[in-house]
């Protein structure tokens, strides 16, 4: 079996009639074995698909809001356009991506993105704050600019993992905070399974 990983929008409000699903699940891969890392409450997700038919792959990447991760996760991202593409694959969905260098592997990229999703999921499960990226908030917005409930949710999510939050100050950007949390998640050795280990 061959796994393919895509980054794409998440749709649905979570209700019975509109469950939260990857945007193209119903239309393009309703019968493929699949797993999803939703980015918490945000409208983005990573999807792991098994044995994607070429036509399905073509149809998926033909959408402007879909980014495909190379099948060989151990290959280097590379420089130039490849590097820009990799960074944009994450930044488009408000996942920090400017840290990526040409010498990083795609596995490092997807593991980092997966860790960001897990941190956002813990924040989601606490049901304290709402969306992060709403009302003009971006990755470069400061922690102090977030609503109080969102700030508390972020701190509680980090504390639930025993992360070090000493660097989370009012002037910290959301990019800095999410990056720190993701790196601490990876350093803690938590597993990451998305139709197979990452």
């Amino acid at each position: 079996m061959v796994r393919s990983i895509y980054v794409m929008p998440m749709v649905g409000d979570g209700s019975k009639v509109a469950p939260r699903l990857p945007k193209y699940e119903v239309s393009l891969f309703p019968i493929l074995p699949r797993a999803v890392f939703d980015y918490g409450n945000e409208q983005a997700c990573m999807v792991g698909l098994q044995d994607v038919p070429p036509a399905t792959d073509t149809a998926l990447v033909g959408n402007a809001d879909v980014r495909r991760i190379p099948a060989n996760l151990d290959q280097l991202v590379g420089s130039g356009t490849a590097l820009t593409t990799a960074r944009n694959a994450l930044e488009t969905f408000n996942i920090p991506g400017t840290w990526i260098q040409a010498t990083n592997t795609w596995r490092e990229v997807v593991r980092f993105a997966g860790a960001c999703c897990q941190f956002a999921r813990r924040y989601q499960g606490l049901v304290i704050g709402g969306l992060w990226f709403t009302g003009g908030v971006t990755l470069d917005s400061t922690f102090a600019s977030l609503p109080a409930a969102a700030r508390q949710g972020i701190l509680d999510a980090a504390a639930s993992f025993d992360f070090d939050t000493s660097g989370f100050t009012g002037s910290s950007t959301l990019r800095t905070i999410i990056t720190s949390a993701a790196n601490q998640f990876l350093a803690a050795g938590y597993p990451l399974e998305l139709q197979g280990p990452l």
Partner: protein
Amino acid sequence: MTTATDSFTRANNSGDLGTNWTTVPGETLIELLSNQAANHGDSADQAEYWNVFTPTNDQYSKSKLTAVAGYTTGDGPGEAVRMSTSAVTYYRLVCCHQASSNVMLSKKIAGAFTALATVTQAWTDGDTWELRVVGTSLTAYLNGTIVSGLTTTDTSITSGRVGLAYSSENAGKTATWDDWDGGDYGASGAQTVNPNAIATGEALFQPTVKLQVLPDAIASGENVFQPTLPSTQTVQPNPVATGENVFQPTAKLSVSAGAIATGESVLQPTVKLQVLVNAIATAEQVYGPIVTLSGSPLSVLPNTITSLEAVYAPALGQQVVAGTITSAEQVFSPSVAVVTPQTVQPGTIATAEQVYAPAFVGLVTPGVFPDDIPSAARVYAPTVAFVPRPPPPALVRVAPVRAPALASAPHSAAPAFGSAARRTGAPPLRVGP
């Protein structure tokens, strides 16, 4: 480790599963029907949790399921873990008999439903489905076997109860649960492997074991033997990682006979010898080290020789450093050979003095021979007669004589002046009666 079971063998109850079960607030109940649990209609999602105890965060829920045909992806009966007692929050595994994508692992967070993983897995009514969560890993099992593709990671929900869940098709479908089992999935407790639990041909993996010798695990006085190593095994260099503590046993190490196979190399450890204080018993002999007397003179440090020790004169040619011999020590004179001739100056011996014959070695004054004067004999100074000097001769004037021109001999020898008259030797000593 706490677990519970329920066979649902009791009277029908359309209002609940019984006193040990509670409906999740915000969801619809599950009812008792024909000694099984059954969905209560098909128009709304349903969930009930076991209310007798709160399991640990690593937990499972499993039961035998049936479902009529017609359910679609994401709908049907299933298991639930980490169920909230106050909100529609839990992980859920539901299954149906649709030809594809018929098993779904999902979560509900405050009522919001998100699909986590979906696969196609054929199954038969009455099969046992299980949802297990350990840490952040969710895994689905069918009849005790992991379902491929249904292991995933999620961090949203950290704790809760175990129980049953149902995703409605809203088409009048029916499903049942039986022989439910749930509770702690306790890796920390003793695990029992039931007979025939492992099918023929399955691979069993040995857990990773780290052997460790704890500090003080070897009591003082115990013998530590080298393990018997098969000839194919070797002890690798650096088997102890950097930073690990290695404790030396107190007891002597002994190597049993035959423990080291023929042909094996045994390396001598680096040993530092040290003589401890009081290690030499009284009355034991201690031998001085062999010292080469060459090079710089050896010195004896102050107070290194006790008052009772004898110090022998060194061979001549060596120096005794000032201050190295204390006042109470005995120092013996070396044998000295006198090689310088001794003379007795005239007039130095007064009348009636006793003069002892020295032990002469070498030259003596002519006329007196060694041992001529016996010991204790008196020697008197001789009487010296004054002899008047004869008058000088009359001087005669002589015309000066011009020195001839010098040829080859520049000087004539100077005459000796009155040598015989001015040097009157002492008469030979005479031995008195």
